[in-house]
């Protein structure tokens, strides 16, 4: 757009790499770049089209994260190290949910931008998605698989809330190009900071088995009111009851009652049981990757 965010960041005195996906805005940015003596670097590319899944050559503005980090001159750091890069941006409303899922998947796989360490995201998302990300167990509608997975993966901080009415709209009727929300409040755009947890991979969870974790959480919360024991039984798990007792999860707990941390513990316990060695679970996980990686 007109570069308000970029200018604010520059005024704050940080080094900025600007990704611009629309070639119409490039010339202006480039002249700004030339006048700034290295504080700004402009790249033609789209952050939300990083590492496309289709095979074949990547045509700009889509781009590969390897290329991007090379151009930025940022090297990969270990997971436990400090945040290597901070990203600022506004999630396109149309594919907000999709983008959140894709980022999540990259996070758990340590792929794409997360290959370079715990990249911190500072993104504007709609209030309804913010409500989902920060929901508590038992909150109807809001508490979802996305909630559990983001909360296990990142520290989530709200930095700022701005009413939608502050934004110019291009709709004829003067309305907002914001999808209406039936169940959750959606009056603001929220600036949210998502910092990956340092200890995300210290337990039984590994980038290699995280797809199974994601799959498990999604299956559990597909029907939030179903009982966890029923879920485990329908996966032909041998001793679901004993497992739940050990985890101190009540026998009649519904899947929406579990805290994100509970899901993590459940997963780690299941790692040691026979369940994940059952071939079908593996197949399903693989299959699910196709659907998640939309």
């Amino acid at each position, binding site marked *: 757009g007109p570069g308000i965010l970029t200018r604010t960041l520059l005024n704050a005195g940080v080094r900025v790499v600007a990704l611009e996906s629309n070639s119409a805005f490039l010339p202006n940015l480039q002249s700004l770049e030339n006048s700034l003596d290295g504080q700004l670097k402009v790249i033609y590319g789209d952050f939300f089209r990083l590492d496309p899944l289709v095979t074949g050559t990547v045509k700009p503005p889509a781009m590969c994260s390897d290329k991007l980090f090379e151009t930025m001159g940022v090297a990969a750091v270990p997971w436990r190290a400090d945040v290597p890069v901070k990203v600022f941006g506004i999630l396109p409303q149309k594919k907000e949910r999709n983008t959140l899922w894709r980022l999540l998947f990259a996070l758990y796989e340590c792929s794409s931008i997360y290959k370079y360490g715990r990249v911190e995201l500072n993104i504007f998302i709609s209030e309804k998605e913010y409500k989902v990300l920060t929901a508590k167990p038992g909150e109807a509608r809001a508490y979802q698989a996305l909630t559990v997975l983001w909360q296990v993966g990142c520290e989530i901080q709200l930095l700022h809330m701005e009413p939608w009415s502050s934004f110019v709209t291009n709709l004829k009727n003067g309305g907002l190009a914001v999808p209406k929300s039936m169940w959750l409040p959606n009056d603001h755009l929220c600036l949210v900071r998502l910092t990956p947890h340092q200890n995300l991979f210290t337990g039984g969870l*590994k980038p290699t088995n995280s797809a199974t974790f994601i799959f498990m959480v999604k299956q559990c919360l597909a029907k939030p009111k179903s009982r966890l024991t029923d879920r485990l039984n329908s996966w032909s798990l041998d001793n679901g009851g004993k497992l739940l007792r050990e985890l101190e999860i009540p026998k009649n707990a519904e899947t929406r009652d579990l805290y994100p941390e509970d899901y993590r513990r459940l997963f780690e316990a299941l790692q040691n049981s026979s369940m994940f060695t059952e071939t079908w679970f593996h197949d399903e996980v*693989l299959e699910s990757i196709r659907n998640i990686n939309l």
Partner: protein
Amino acid sequence: LLRCVQQLKNDGFRVDDLFQKCLFEEDEKEKVLRAIRTVQPNYQLPPPPNPQTCKSSLLQDFYSKEKMVSYPKLDFSAQELQEHFQQQLEMELDNTVTIESVESTKPLTPQAIKARKLLATLRSRWHSSILQALQKSKHSMSKHKMVSGYNILYPYLCLLPDEEYVGIMLQILNTLSPQGESLAVLARELGSKVYNRYVTQRKLCSGQLEKVQEVYKDYVHLLAKDSKPAKYLPREYWEKLVAEAGFGPSLNLKDCSWPYVLIMRLGMHMLELLVQAVKVPRNILNPRLEPKLIPVLYHIYSFRSSWQVGLIKPHPIFSQIVSDAAETLLTFNSSAIPMLCPPVPWTSPHFGAFVLNDTKLMRFVDGAIQHQLLLEQCPPVNLHPVLDALNQLGNCAWKINQPVLDIIISIFNDKGNEKLDIPPPMSEAPRPPAVSGNSSTWNKSQKHELLLCKKKAAEMHSLRMDALYKLSIANYVRDKVFWFPHNMDFRGRTYPCPPYFNHLGNDVTRAILLFAEGRPLGPKGLDWLKIHLINLTGLKKKDALQDRLKYANEIMEEILDSADHPLTGRKWWMNTDEPWQALACCMEIAKASRSPDPAAYISHFPVHQDGSCNGLQHYAALGRDLIGAISVNLMPCNVPQDVYSVVAQQVEEFRKKDAEQGLKIAQVLQGFISRKVVKQTVMTVVYGVTRYGGRLQMEKRLKEIDEFPEEYLWEASHYLVKQVFNGIKEMFSATRDIQNWLTESAKLIAQSGRTVEWVTPLGLPIVQPYYRSTSTVVSICWALRQQAKARQVGITCGKPDTVKQKNAFPPNFIHSLDSTHMMLTALHCLRQGLTFVSVHDCYWTHALTVDVMNQICRQQFVALHSEKILQDLSEFMLEKYCSPGRETRALWQKKLMEQLSNVPQTGEFNLKKVMDSTYFFS
């Protein structure tokens, strides 16, 4: 009794009404008569109502008694037809048919023998555990005295013997694909199976079947070669016989259809029983594991962008055993097999087609019953033309082209052939590269490759099974003559009822079908066969018929080589658009041309004539668009016209002008505009494609062109779709007006809270079944009440889906016209003694009668469009939606009235010209 009769009178009924309007089972009718005669000893049954005749101006000749000719005979004696009927009846009484698959000729491996034994043991175990689970659930339901959500299904679990429920459930288990199936689909299947058996049972118990048997015995005399000719249509003859039979049960059953929710709930319940009851020892394939019972079926969710689907999947252990066993018996519902006797003629929306299987005259979109109600309320005489057309299509007898079937089966049982559309067996599926170690350590590309393999395997499996079903059914009827009963969708488009194997299928299935009836080729038949062959190749599309014939004669050597050595020769046939039909045609040409007198050669081969962009043909005729009419071959021309090329040219002209004026995007597009780029959009304009959808299509086409610069994709596709629409507007100016008028009218109607309805020129009432879906869970009691209410007062539940009502109206209206044209052609072909079937806008007949059929086809098109179609539509809708009694003051009503009255102007194309247009259908 006296009080009852008095009560009837007080309520405004006559005693005669009892016998004219009520439905009876068993000997109810006799008993009622006896009762009436106790109080009115002299009471006489009312005379049967006089058969009414359809008054449609389009069918005046067809229904006129003077011009009535006797119904064409089949090549069977009455005795033979009667035997065929018995076979069909026995098959339907069994509900299912189990047949040998075409794979059964393969030798059995020891592994397969072992797996089959294992399956047999498991199945008998499952049988008893399912039975137990069913009885347990019934028992616990029966203990509740009050009807509640918990036990509302109880009566529906008591309709059939327990064994039958178990059989239905086991059958589902056998047909479940390894990829699983959505919960909703399975539940519907289970529920409908119970419903179908229940209906069969009612037909048996109420004496309905006995009566059908009796009537059919006489009905065959209309068709049998050894009976006297009769000047009746099948429907008329059947009605006459029913009236003559007098007493006994009614042929229509009292209404007993179940609401959709009920079928789904019942199916869900049975599915849950299956999931809980069917188990397999985990160590069955690997004895080292501990012997623990695990469920064979499990629930899983699949996520598609924002929504989730519940699936039932079989455990891989079970899929493995099934695949090892390679069982070669296939079980089908008896309605999946073509009929072995001429179908029972349609005489009402509830009666016709199969002997026992419940078939609806109109296929329905899940849960919608509005069109069924509309058909019931419509005076029966208005439905006569449609019923007669369906009977006509269903009465065409078929047989199998055995040499072609044998070649196809040989390839199918060998390695398949993707190019020839014969799906390869699973043994040919790509194998993922062997990677050592746990799958969790695989890298991304390995996972990706494995995924691709799995996806491919899943696709191959479903294609293979589809082909296996089709070929096995074809093989099962290979020595028989058979029939496809027809019904229609809500727009009147007709379809054969058996779902897998029928003439609407792909190239492979069409190639193995022949008319059972043979006719000599006649003087021009061989030429038509040759032209038909060239049409099947897809070559010479732009050439005149004479040139196509000339070309066929030039390549006669190739044709004969293909016929004589299909798999070992030069294989010319394999490189055509429709290779299998082309091969079958080569063989027919070879046989005919080698016979001593080709004109006398008896041919069973169907020759096709296709409408060229049929939707646009109807639009052009509606709007009398001159240029448009020329481009879709409504005007006589020396060579066939191609509307796509014409539009492409038009767009190119626009582009040139814009480029000269310096428009950047027009300059970029230089050299990129072709027939291929515009084809899909032009084709789909008829079906109401919007600018938005059209742009996406364009973008796809442009993306396929490697040289096209990507950064201009959006702009270019946007520009192109605008120009294509402009081009079409120029050529089909009235067409666009009509489309807009239809869309706008539908929008206003839907906004006023009503669904769009109309009546085809043949009198078929149509309602668009699009409602806003409400995902609220409804109780069965509520649904049952609602259904009863709907039948009484004709109320509809749910608000119309405005967007769908609006966007779908123009294409649906055009489809209702093309189906009308087809039915008119079918009926008039019957009068001329032709064999006729259709695949929507592709008409089939014998080579001998192609010329006659073409003439009828054109005549009927002219006759149809000589009606004041749009005027009539406007009047009908004004009456329906703006009739005075309603609150006429409302602003929307005024607006609607204005819109509906304002019928678009038409151009000056002279419709009669169609009569001489060779390439109208060709």
